[in-house]
């Protein structure tokens, strides 16, 4: 039975339920203060990726399904959101909804095909589907091909609030991120989430208990794709562009890296991982030649030594759940 090694295979302490709440409070406080200290545009992009990684982690860390083609939902939501805002002239919240809905539909189609297989074959189907949609994006007129969709307007939220103000935009992105994050939290800590974890541990047993595991897996897949889509759609409005980079397989690889570095199967891991990887990309920009090598070295180090990721190791040390 293919599954990911559970980083929390140990007895958690009494601090268990409280640790997650405390960590959540710390995260919110940090994100509220941060734009006054660091460049807001960077933080907004980091939050979008943190949401993307969290959505990916829902599938791999809690259901045990490694998807190699998650860029498909992120990128196409980004395209549709950009198109809706720029060409159809929709207000930003409608544009983001359009993008998210697109990702949900794509997730339903891709998921119903991919769910039939497990392990590496599941991964390869998701990759194949993502690659096919990538080649389609290269050629389709409306995606702008290599140039992408540029000059996406920030617009007025609900027709009233001008999003060109960085702090206003930041508040909106923060709300979207927290909403998505809490939604994932609720999914994980719900009866539905328990069934998902049971499927990860031993699918055969879950089936023998009467659960229709295919439906649960598909539901999780669609949820993961939808939230990834929300992240992509928001990013298009924040950065005011959508490009091929968002649908290509290195993007799928990057979200795997973020989740791995942060901690597979932890709630806060993907958030930490996303911030770390993005900070690295920007700090290393002046010595750009070594970015690829350093990313590779981090992959290797994480797999060999820090399999639990940053947050996972922290949780393990403190014997709490994060």
């Amino acid at each position, binding site marked *: 039975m293919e599954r990911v090694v559970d980083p929390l295979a140990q007895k958690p302490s009494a601090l268990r339920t409280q640790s997650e709440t405390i960590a959540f409070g710390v995260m919110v406080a940090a994100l509220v203060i941060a734009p006054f200290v660091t460049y807001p545009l960077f933080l907004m992009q980091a939050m979008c990726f943190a949401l993307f990684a969290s959505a990916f982690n829902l599938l791999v860390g809690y259901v045990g399904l490694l998807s190699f083609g998650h860029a498909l939902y992120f990128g196409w939501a980004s395209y549709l959101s950009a198109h809706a805002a720029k060409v159809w002239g929709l207000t930003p919240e409608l544009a983001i909804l359009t993008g998210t809905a697109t990702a949900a539909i794509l997730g339903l189609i891709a998921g119903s095909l991919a769910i039939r297989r497990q392990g*590496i*074959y599941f991964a390869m189907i998701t990759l194949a589907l993502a690659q096919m949609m990538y080649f389609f994006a290269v050629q389709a007129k409306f995606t702008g091909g290599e140039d992408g969709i540029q000059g996406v307007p920030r617009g007025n939220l609900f027709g009233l609030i001008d999003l060109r103000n960085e702090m206003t935009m930041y508040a909106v992105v923060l709300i979207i991120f927290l909403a998505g994050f809490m939604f994932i939290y609720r999914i994980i800590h719900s009866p539905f989430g328990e069934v998902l974890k049971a499927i990860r541990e031993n699918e055969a047993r879950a089936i023998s208990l009467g659960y229709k595991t295919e439906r649960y897996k598909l539901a999780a897949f669609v949820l993961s794709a939808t939230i990834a889509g929300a992240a992509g759609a928001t990013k298009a409005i924040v950065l005011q562009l959508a490009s091929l980079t968002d649908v290509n397989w290195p993007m799928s690889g990057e979200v795997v890296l973020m989740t791995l570095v942060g901690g597979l199967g932890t709630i806060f891991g993907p958030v930490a991982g996303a911030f770390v990887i993005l900070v690295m990309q920007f700090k290393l920009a002046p010595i750009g030649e070594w970015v*690829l*090598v350093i*990313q*590779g*070295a981090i*992959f290797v180090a994480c797999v060999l030594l820090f399999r639990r990721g940053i947050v996972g190791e922290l949780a393990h040390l403190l014997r709490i759940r994060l």
Partner: protein
Amino acid sequence: MFEIFGIPSQALFGQLLIGLINGSFYALLSLGLAVIFGMLNIINFSHGAQYMMGAFVAYLLLQYSGLGYWPALIVAPILVGITGVIVERLFLQWLYKLDHLYGLLLTFGLALILEGVARNYFGSAGLPYTVPESLQGGRNLGFMFLPNYRAWVIVASLTVCIGTWFVIERTRLGAYLRAATENPTLVRAFGINVPRMITLTYGFGVALAAFAGVMAAPIYNVSPQMGSELIIVVFAVVVIGGMGSILGAIVTGFGLGVVEGLTKVFFPEASNTVIFVIMAIVLLVRPAGLFGRRG
């Protein structure tokens, strides 16, 4: 001279032959991957980078020691194979007990490192490497002009592929190897050094990749990203053929080359998508692949 679907038969046969030649590259590369996965259960994502290393070593051998194409065909795979052995001893051996995922991620990380280092030292445009004198030129077959080098590619690939298949499926060494993957403890009990066999097998798979790299150097651009462009397609080939099957990798490699070649004639814009479409279909219909024995 007759027409099939609007394409003159001459042109069609030419494209079929070209497809077969491309298929031999796919077969060579997927052979190495299939050997490594079949024997070791490791998904070697750095296969593309090792293919690239083969081409680069061939270039370096030419630049710094004057060794041309023919010696490079032997020396480069050996050198790169040795690096494979080092990788296995240093990194991979700790991952056998874990989920496939970790082997994949580790080799993916290694691929990034190799590509990054190559880019830093050699730039990204590419390095010059020409077809060796003895294989230059070609002959006009009537329905197309066939460069001699391409004819050599088919011959060499078929030889290596059939040779490898024979060793693994029909010799005693191959039998030990296959037994060791099924039940290492039992085979060890017979006094066979299983860890060493595994190490050497990985080295051999990597050497196959490097061999393909040397073969590619004269006709494809020798650049740091030459492997990453190819690796996804090669994975698709292996998955279609059946991840543990040597014969599957060879047959599918050649077959897919032909299919791709035909697509280039009738519908060229789709020639890079057709492999993924086929892979998705095969995975849904026959999950273990066409020749696979692992579910």
